[in-house]
């Protein structure tokens, strides 16, 4: 077999990555632009980052976003995990197909429809829009992503582990917390991180369900861009990109490392036996 890639593979790889990442690279480069004009390069500077720190409106929006993302991700993880367990475990029950369909529907539902229907609901129950309504809305659509991630982790779960725990005198609820949850924890954490990032960058649903005093960062950026793009926005976006990259890369390195260590241990154990 021939090692190395053919020119075709190399070209398609380069084009593919360029397509995906060129806009982001440009954004990052222009965030260090001296000039006020976004499209004209005026030399290297970090002044927009400094200016950013004094922009109270943007900082407030960022704080709202992080809080919304944290609470909605946590709530979505709890609900999504429960839904995943029901779907993976209960076997056949009346309405199972309907239930699983309803859990997964928000995955393909247009965000505009989801946002509008949530807005109508909040209006109908006369709930003042703001921080809590955005959080509930984000929980609703992030929950199904969590359910998918956790369910895939549960698919490889040996039921005998739970039976063994009960056999050794552990009541069902305690079995869940001392055996099931620790084992599916990587899936639950992955689900939480997915929910967190989804909430972080959502614009459509947040715009529908927000009120006057709660503006998230994507909403703030969008409204500012309509008045004209400033390098300040580029700086905010660069920080966001950096944050997400760090989280994702760390998570994948940790998982990979664990797998490698585990495989090495298993080989050693077999060799010693």
């Amino acid at each position, binding site marked *: 077999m021939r090692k190395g890639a053919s020119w075709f593979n190399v070209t398609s790889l380069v084009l593919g990555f360029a397509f995906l990442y060129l806009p982001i690279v440009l954004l990052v480069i222009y965030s260090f632009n001296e000039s006020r004009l976004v499209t004209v390069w005026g030399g290297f500077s970090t002044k927009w980052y400094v200016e950013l720190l004094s922009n109270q409106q943007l900082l407030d929006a960022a704080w709202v976003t992080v809080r919304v993302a944290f609470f909605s991700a946590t709530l979505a993880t709890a609900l999504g995990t429960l839904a995943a367990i029901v779907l993976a475990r209960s076997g056949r029950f009346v309405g199972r197909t309907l239930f699983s369909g309803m859990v997964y529907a928000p995955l393909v539902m247009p965000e505009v429809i989801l946002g509008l229907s949530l807005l109508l609901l909040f209006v109908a129950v006369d709930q003042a829009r703001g921080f809590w309504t955005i959080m509930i809305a984000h929980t609703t659509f992030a929950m199904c992503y969590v359910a998918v991630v956790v369910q895939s982790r549960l698919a490889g779960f040996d039921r005998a582990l739970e039976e063994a*725990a009960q*056999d050794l005198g552990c*009541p069902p609820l305690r079995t869940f917390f001392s055996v099931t949850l620790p084992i599916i924890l990587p899936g639950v954490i992955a689900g939480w991180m997915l929910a967190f990032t989804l909430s972080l960058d959502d614009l459509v649903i947040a715009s529908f369900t927000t009120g006057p005093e709660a503006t998230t960062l994507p909403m703030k950026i969008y409204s500012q861009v309509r008045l004209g793009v400033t390098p300040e926005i580029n700086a905010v976006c660069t920080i966001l990109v950096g944050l997400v990259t760090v989280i994702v890369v760390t998570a994948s390195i940790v998982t990979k490392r664990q797998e490698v260590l585990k495989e090495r241990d298993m080989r050693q154990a077999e060799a010693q036996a």
Partner: protein
Amino acid sequence: MAKKPIGPIRRDFAPWDDPQARPYIEFRNVTKKFGDFTAVDNLSLKIHEREFFALLGGSGCGKTTMMRMLAGFETPNAGEIFLDGQNLAGVPPHRRPVNMMFQSYALFPHMSVEANVAFGLKQEGMPRAEIAGRVEEMLSLVKLQDFAKRKPHQLSGGQRQRVALARSLAKKPKVLLLDEPLGALDRKLREETQFELTDLQQDLGMTFVIVTHDQEEAMTMADRIAVMDKGRIVQIATPSEIYEVPNSRFVADFIGDINLMECKVVARNGEMTKLHAPLFDCAIEVAQSVEAGIGETVWFAIRPEKVRISFDEPEGPANRLTGEVWDIGYLGDVSIYHTHIAEEETVRATVANRSRVVERPMSWEDKVWLSWDRDAGVVLTR
């Protein structure tokens, strides 16, 4: 660990022959259905205290379902299960005084060996110092003291099996259930472990119930074996009874290798029965009284190691056949001779290879005589 005879220790142990003995575990007319499939069919069974009891059968015979009902993971559709006089209906798994060793071992992957063994003791609320002592004791019992801090994935298959055993023994349960405990081990390790398990059961004085599809496993370890088929028990007896006096063609065929000949009863004379096997054109005399009447169809079953094979014609008119060696299976310790009788039929004879060189070895297409004693085979009526 060297093989050692285990018979003599248990020579006088036979509570099942005593009608006064109270069974420790009792299944009364238990039925379990999964949808349309009947896994266990109106089954009754008594297991005695300190007994090593094996449930033996092919896949889908209901043996695992029996064990899971005893552990509380399945609920019978009908019938009752008693343990030490207590009806187990409605008792959840975590309140039953039985522990189970799972086929997959089911070790908790996120806990160390130590924590796995301690898990059951913690649920009991045993004091910490006492737990440490018991864990130590259990790990030395299975010779894994040096592996206490390891995680299950850092152990070999055999070591994992021993952790699973230590964990299930840690609570000193009244009954230990073993689901195919040696299935995942290689042959040599399996043989060693069989003897270790028997010793352990003797030392601890617990009741062991083992589920297995491996007849050798059941024969070496168990005091009694229940052979199961399609949710019913076909025969319950000691290993030697099951082997030497099977009660049906199913059991005879399932346990070990056997030659079966369809026969007609020719004469009955007290303890002596005369048969005729039409396909073999063979007269058979058996030292056994048979319930079937003259002219009825029965089966004569004889183990290959009880058939003599020779070049010389044996004496007497009965219990002999002549044929041609068709195939020889050389297994090292023994050779199996497949002999063709009257075109279609085959009879197998096993011969121990006592010396390395044989003066006149039997070979393919040699004409040979097969013969056996009157008490070598059994007559089966079903």
